[in-house]
């Protein structure tokens, strides 16, 4: 076993992989901060970072203001959202034993969007966390609906799963459209953009909240890393190896739904990140979730940072919804996976 021991997840390998992926994320983030309508050169960036956030007179410096109040928060937020979606994707794929699962495909994002829009229209945004909480309720309802449908058959076929997701998506988008068409409020104006993902809406407070929730959910999920490996083998096997399957499943489902709900309530529906990233990481690193989770977290973040950079620059000065970019990459990848997994 010594000769193949390096393929097993050890603390040393975990640290190595995490460092490499962190470095990659940092590099991508630095590049993304520099691109935009007004280019920032590496030298300017370095200088600005050393000087820190502009205050007083320095606030007049447009370069530094753009950097600190627009670019850096935006890149950070894209990273957090990408990381959250990829992590949620890893969990959904393991629990459903299906590489085609992802928050968007399963309709969990759709459920969250109903909650979020209802929240905005009902004025729940005035309450602390009103909209995210409603989005969470919607996401949870959709997740349990899909899992409930899927439970009927012991070996879950991709067909059943995707069909359940399609139905939930059709239903939730109908509800969203209904809510939009009966409302007269001003917020709805942005809704169309929001439906395809808009990373420019979040405030500094929102970003902080998202980061906190991502951290908490990730720690919770990572604590079940070994259990996730066993779920992939089968729920019976997980039970027989000492996992309390039903309670663990609920905890993980709730954590992945929270991650989905937070992203949807803050920036709308961004599809396919949770589908592509876990699959790619599995091809590179193997199936052990103790490695897969941190790698997907960081790579998912980097992926959405890049996608967002493209969405800001491709049609500049106009901005594309970032969901357009991820769907353009993700949908073909989905078809490729579907064809490969077909018998």
């Amino acid at each position, binding site marked *: *076993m010594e*000769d*193949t*021991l390096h*393929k*097993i*997840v*050890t*603390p040393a390998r975990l640290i190595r992989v995490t460092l490499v992926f962190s470095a990659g994320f940092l590099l991508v983030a630095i590049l993304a901060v520099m691109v935009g309508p007004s280019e920032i050169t590496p030298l300017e960036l370095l200088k600005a970072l050393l000087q820190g956030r502009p205050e007083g007179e320095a606030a007049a410096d447009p370069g530094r203001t753009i950097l600190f109040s627009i670019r850096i928060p935006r890149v950070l937020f894209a990273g957090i959202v990408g990381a959250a979606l990829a992590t949620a994707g890893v969990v959904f794929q393991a629990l459903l*034993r*299906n*590489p085609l699962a992802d928050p968007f495909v399963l309709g969990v994002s759709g459920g969250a969007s109903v909650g979020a829009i209802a929240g905005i229209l009902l004025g729940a945004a005035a309450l602390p966390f009103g909209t995210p909480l409603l989005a969470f309720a919607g996401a949870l309802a959709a997740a349990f609906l899909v899992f409930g449908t899927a439970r009927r058959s012991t070996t879950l076929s991709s067909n059943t799963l995707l069909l359940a997701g399609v139905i939930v998506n059709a239903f939730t988008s109908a509800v969203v459209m209904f809510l939009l068409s009966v409302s007269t409020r001003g917020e709805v104006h942005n809704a169309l953009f929001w439906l395809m993902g808009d990373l420019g809406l979040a405030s500094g407070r929102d970003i902080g909240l998202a980061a906190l929730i991502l951290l908490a959910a990730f720690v919770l999920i990572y*604590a*079940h890393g*070994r259990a996730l*490996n*066993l779920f*992939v*083998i*089968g729920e*019976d*096997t997980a*039970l*027989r*190896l*000492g*996992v*309390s399957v039903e309670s663990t499943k609920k905890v993980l489902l709730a954590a992945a739904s929270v991650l989905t709900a937070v992203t949807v309530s803050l920036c709308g529906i961004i599809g396919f990140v949770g589908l592509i990233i876990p699959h790619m990481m*599995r091809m590179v690193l*193997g*199936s*052990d979730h*103790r490695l897969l989770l941190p790698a997907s977290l960081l790579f998912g973040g980097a992926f959405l940072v890049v996608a967002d950079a493209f969405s800001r620059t491709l049609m500049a000065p106009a901005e594309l919804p970032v969901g357009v970019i991820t769907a353009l990459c993700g949908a073909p990848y989905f078809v490729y996976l579907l064809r490969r997994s077909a018998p």
Partner: protein
Amino acid sequence: MTPAIRLEFVSFRYDQAWVLREVSLEVERGGFLGILGPNGSGKTTLLNLVDGILSPREGRVFLEGEDAATLDRDELARRVAVVPQDSPLIFPFTVQEIVLMGRTPHLGRWRFEGQRDFEIARDAMKRTGTLPLAGRPMSELSGGERQRVLIARALAQEPRILLLDEPTSNLDIHHQLAFFSLVEDLNRTRGLTVVAVSHDINLASLYCRRIALLKDGAVCGEGRPEDIITEESIRDVFGAPVRVDRHPETGRPRITPIRHHLPERGSRWETGAAPQL
């Protein structure tokens, strides 16, 4: 000494119909019990009650003298390991990853496998002849190889009781014999208590020291193979006509199926009753 497994008037049903009815059974420590019975007689349900996947509706299951209902999942998994029927693998785990999963009930949530766990896993793979496959993806193996990997995983659990659920149903005769010889060896050398559900009466007769016959959710005979496997009992339990003679080397009972004589049209057989023999 308390028996390894003791079932006391265990009954179980999923919805309405009882799958098991007041089953009482004992397996001594280091015993090797084969459970035989037709499809739907409750064999797999019986195993699932022992490994705690299901809980009895009535009656109690004792493992080494302790009520299984009072043991937590980790403790159960340290005592009982199951070699399940082969099932497809969706994500590409390697053989050594699968075997190391057997260490789960011995490890805390945050602990990684240590040197001792690697040694136990290596020993389990050596024992089952799967060490050369260690780095291969499970999905690339043959049915016989996968079955041996699943035993290796069960051994890595360091259980005292090993349950086998029709482990050889997809294997050819060479791998069937190899599988049972391995299990018998583990039973003898490590004192592992073995309970095997099987469809193969001859294999069970050859390897198991005791046999239980299950019919319609009830045990209708338990004892040494030579006392249990008879032409009458097989006809009664399986509704199949067989001749029973002795295995030329071991003297254990050996069955030979004889051809069904289809009864006349409209007879009891066509209406679902057992064939007239």
